């Protein structure tokens, strides 16, 4: 292989530079960024539009409020603390239960209230926010994930990441936490990415640390050929997120709650490229086709139909190869 670039190009793999120059810069207007960068704003927008999100228990904005942490947390047995401006899953603390006066992390480690307070203080001082600006900490509902994923998830909650371009879902993957990722669902932190057939909602084989796998490394569960429940519902949800924030190229993260169904967890204005690895499909052909449409259907079901159509075309293309 003399020119690996050509092969990547031919397979339609989107690179970081091209993502930034051809998709993020032209399609994502800067002024809409706060809507997705601030998870609190995203939540409000989603709620106003009737989109289900994990319930917000409380917001901590100033250090002083940490003293009243106990009162804020007392009604809840389990919850998640996250920075409103966090990115890449950093700074998220998942509490699954209590042990006497203390809190139990997803990994089983027991934390004191003081330690939780310190974590919140770190969030507030901007340790996890983009650009190190002062931040807010959100306390929200901990998603009880669908038992379907029990066998393929370790400690954390799997989420479904979909790249939505001009309101049309283009590629989707499910991200499975591992012991390595410490229960977090970010691929670069060691989570597994599993491609999803956009038409059927069935999973393909996954990638973990850049290698193809079919079984979860921690639980041994088979990750291939799982059927994602409420798939059409999820596709519609992701398509609607475009109308929510007006950004042309976004990543939508959805979690499947046991009781509440699909919930929109967060939106991302700079979604990563690993989704291509998880699906073993390059993003470019689909993006280019969507780019070439003068008009994108305004109704959500039409856009989902378009997404499926595009997926079918590229499926047949790749299988024909």
């Amino acid at each position, binding site marked *: *292989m003399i020119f*690996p*670039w050509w*092969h*990547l*190009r*031919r*397979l339609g*793999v989107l*690179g*970081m*530079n*091209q993502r930034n*120059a*051809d998709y993020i810069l032209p399609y994502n207007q800067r002024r809409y960024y706060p809507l997705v960068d601030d998870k609190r704003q995203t939540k409000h927008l989603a709620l106003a539009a009737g989109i289900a999100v994990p319930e917000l228990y409380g917001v901590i904005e100033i*250090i002083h409020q940490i003293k009243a942490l106990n009162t804020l947390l007392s009604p809840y047995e389990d919850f998640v603390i996250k920075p409103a401006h966090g990115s890449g899953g*950093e700074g998220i603390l998942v509490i699954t239960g209590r042990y006497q006066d203390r809190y139990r992390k997803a990994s089983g480690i027991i934390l004191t209230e*003081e*330690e939780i307070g*310190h974590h919140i*203080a*770190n969030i507030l*001082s*901007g*340790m996890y926010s983009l650009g190190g600006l002062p931040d807010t900490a959100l306390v929200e509902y901990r998603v009880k994930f669908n038992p379907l994923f029990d066998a393929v998830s370790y400690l954390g909650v799997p989420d479904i990441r979909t790249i939505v371009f001009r309101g049309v879902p283009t590629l989707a993957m499910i991200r499975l936490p591992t012991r390595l990722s410490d229960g977090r669902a970010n691929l670069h*932190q060691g989570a597994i990415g599993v491609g999803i057939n956009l038409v059927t909602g069935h999973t393909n084989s996954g*990638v973990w640390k*850049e290698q*193809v796998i079919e079984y979860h490394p921690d639980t041994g569960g088979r990750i291939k050929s799982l059927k994602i429940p409420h798939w059409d519902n999820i596709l519609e949800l992701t398509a609607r997120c475009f109308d929510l924030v007006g950004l042309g190229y976004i990543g939508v993260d959805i979690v499947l709650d046991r009781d509440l169904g699909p919930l929109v967890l967060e939106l991302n204005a700079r979604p990563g*490229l690993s989704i*291509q*690895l998880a699906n*073993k499909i*390059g993003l470019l052909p689909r993006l280019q086709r969507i780019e070439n449409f003068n008009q994108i259907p305004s109704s959500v079901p039409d856009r989902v139909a378009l997404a499926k159509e595009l997926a079918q075309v590229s499926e047949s293309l790749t299988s024909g*190869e």
Partner: protein
Amino acid sequence: MKNLHVKLLAFSLIIIGLSLAYYKATILGLPLFPAEKTKVWMVEARLEFKSKGGPAKIQFQIPQVSAGFTAIGEDFISSKYGLSVEEDGTNRIAQWAVRRAQGDQVLYYRVELAPELTAPIQSRGGATPPFPEIPKYPEPMGSVILALLDEVHSKSADVASFSGELLSRLNSSNPDENALVLRKGVEDPEAWVKRVIYILAGARIPARPVYILLLKHRVKHGSLIPWLEVHNGQEWIAFDPKTGERGFPENALIWYAGGQPLVKLEGGESLKIGYSVSSRFQDLVLVAERRARKMNSLIMDFSLFSLPVQMQNVYRVLLMIPIGTFLIVVLRNVIGVKTFGTFMPILIALAFRETELFWGVALFTGIVALGLMLRFYLEYLKLLLVPRLASVLVMVILLMAIISVLTHKIGLERGLSVALFPMVILTMTIERMSLAWEEHGPAEALQQGFGSLMVAVLGYLLITNKLLEHLVFVFPELLLMILAMTLLLGRYTGYRLTELWRFKEFLMKADKG
């Protein structure tokens, strides 16, 4: 066409940058390589006379440097004398005057000359002279001259060949009788030139003496050498009056032309004039810069050379930063290297300038390692972010102070130059590294830290490159090219080198297919 705007902009920037640099290199003669030196002549004329006690006035012909050389400096050393310089189209005359002068008077005229790049030494212009009257030659000289002129006339085509032929006959080593008659009674070269002019007038050819100074190293008591010029209706043509060879000798400085006296003195006596010449080698940059000033080049007027030296030195460093940032652009967008902070490695590289590479790397690793240890200790104290950063900063500075004192005690003065190390940058590096350590493990943190250090070292090697430093300082417009390339890379949508590794699954698939 995609990105046409950016491409056009980049293209024009490159054209502007290159053409400016080309102009400065060829026309102004700015050197493309550092430490190029050129010979500079220092010519001094010393005028000494005894004053009669009253007012003194002295007029002295000085060179009008126009061809072959550029005067890069000119001085008149004449303490209490008033000075004025006049030009008459052919010559320049300095006029010194003083109301009361007593005893021995010494005046100096000094000029520093740099050889011109392209122009050869040429005769001077000036108005076309009238044809001289044929003098009334005394006999027997008259008939000898006329016979000789007649003979030469038949063997020549124009003024130049006529003069050449005449001179070679007059100067012949086995002269005929005519020549011997004409040579008689001529004691010095000056009189000889005058004699030749006298003879040329017989053919109605305008001629004039020209006085030149030969530039040779360490001439203490030089004198002007008379030379001959004839006019052919268009221009003055120079001849060696002794040999009849055309042109001026090499390294000849034309002092003045024409029959007027070299010097006119009023109110003084026993005038002595001496010339001394010396040469030295000077940085071509300085010479070119002064030459450009003399040429009234606007570009040079607004160049960095017009700044005070101290500020020039600052810009020598500052102008290298775009080259460092361009390196970062390439490493990040084309290669895909990860570093702590965007331009942090370049600031570290700048700090390496003060400490030199080995010490810089040693200090960087040492301080970051010690700082990390302290940072992990602080983690136990559960401090808020900003106070924690501030604490690390205090410790970093204390560490640096300790290192400086220790190295000084041991006798390693190098350690002292650590003072300009960017502490804030180091503190941020320590903080980011400790975060990466906790979030992604020590391997990742060390890898990124090492990556940053490598980029800093690479940046250091680039920004301390003498040739590059010289180029961007003398030709700052070359930075427009850096800007153009940066703009082009700003619209580069190709894959990063590391992405080939990242997407190797796809490549393997392609191989199988």
